[in-house]
């Protein structure tokens, strides 16, 4: 009967440091938010430069 028994020890999950996970996630989210803000500002600035003159010269 021993051959049918599972002798391998139960798999135990590694201890999770919740505080560290939260801190890391918060850091990633802030970096992502900053990245998005930079992207918006870039597109806004590029649009002004590329189209600004043309918009000003359009007839009302």
């Amino acid at each position, binding site marked *: 009967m021993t051959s049918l028994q599972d002798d391998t020890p139960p798999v135990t999950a*590694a201890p*999770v440091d919740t505080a*560290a996970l939260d801190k890391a996630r918060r850091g990633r989210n802030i970096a992502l938010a900053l990245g998005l803000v930079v992207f918006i500002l870039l597109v806004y600035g*590029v649009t002004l*430069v590329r189209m600004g003159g043309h918009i000003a010269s359009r007839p009302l």
Partner: protein
Amino acid sequence: MDPGAPFAYVAPYMSKPVAIEGRAASQPALWSDYLQLLKPRVMSLVVFTAATGLVCADQSINPLLGAVAVFCIAIGAGASGALNMWFDADIDGRMRRTRARPVPAGKVRGAEAATLGIVLSLFSVMLLGMTTNWLAAGLLAFTIYFYVVVYTMWLKRWTPQNIVIGGLAGALPPAIGWAAAAGETPLNAWLMVLIIFMWTPPHAWALALYTSEDYAKVGVPMMPVAKGAASTRKQILIYSLLFTPICQIPAFTGLGGPVYLAVSALGGAVFLLLAWRVFRSRAGDAPDERIEGEDRLYAVRAGSKDARNLFAFSILYLTLLFAALLAEHLARIAPLELL
């Protein structure tokens, strides 16, 4: 099995799909790990050479558009780095120089690195196209494709000429910068590309001479691994003999001025001297069994020092060449046009 060790390091023959999906959950990924995927040091060199190309075009470009163009080229280079780290995670984890990278270290999943690389590739190419022109965007897309598909996925593990051909990807940023400013790429733009292209083999092989054990371990056929150290030292000298005269050409084509000529000539002489020393050294050789005791170790170390010197000076020389071009064009020093 050491639970703290990188997954690919403890399972060197793990298949790629398993290797890139595996992850050690012990360390949460920080934002800096994602930044690391973009190879910031490579990005800084790309920013520098692309900005030089942009300035050397001598076209009036809005400063914001110029800055965004360089930013896009840098992000494109970073995206290539992330895709490279995704694909090479299986070998990176087994080399000393690269095993701390975020994917083999288990901090970031391979799929995440690949996704970041694809998204940033699309972002950088589209934004560069809309900001400047589609010639620059097309060149950036080609650069990313060449680095990821042609170099990383194909050449790197297949031929000792990997960095010779693959070096084109690292050489293109000045042409992209030039195209972003001028909408065209004249011969002088391609001359800057040629300088970096010819610089890459002696630079990379000097490094490979004293890190070849790592490459051999993972089966990457770098020149010292595939053809031996003596052949590599000879090829370093041959490429240096071709590279240093090429560096003088900008003084004859209306690209470089007197400062550039002085820097390229003096630096070129030092470069050749260091390449000659590497050629005469035993860098990359296995210790000679006939030499006894400490003398045997010293003979190998001395050769490695010559290779290190050439590697370090090659970075300085390329930086000085491009800094001279950048300074001359910013200061509006007239080029020589000796021809």
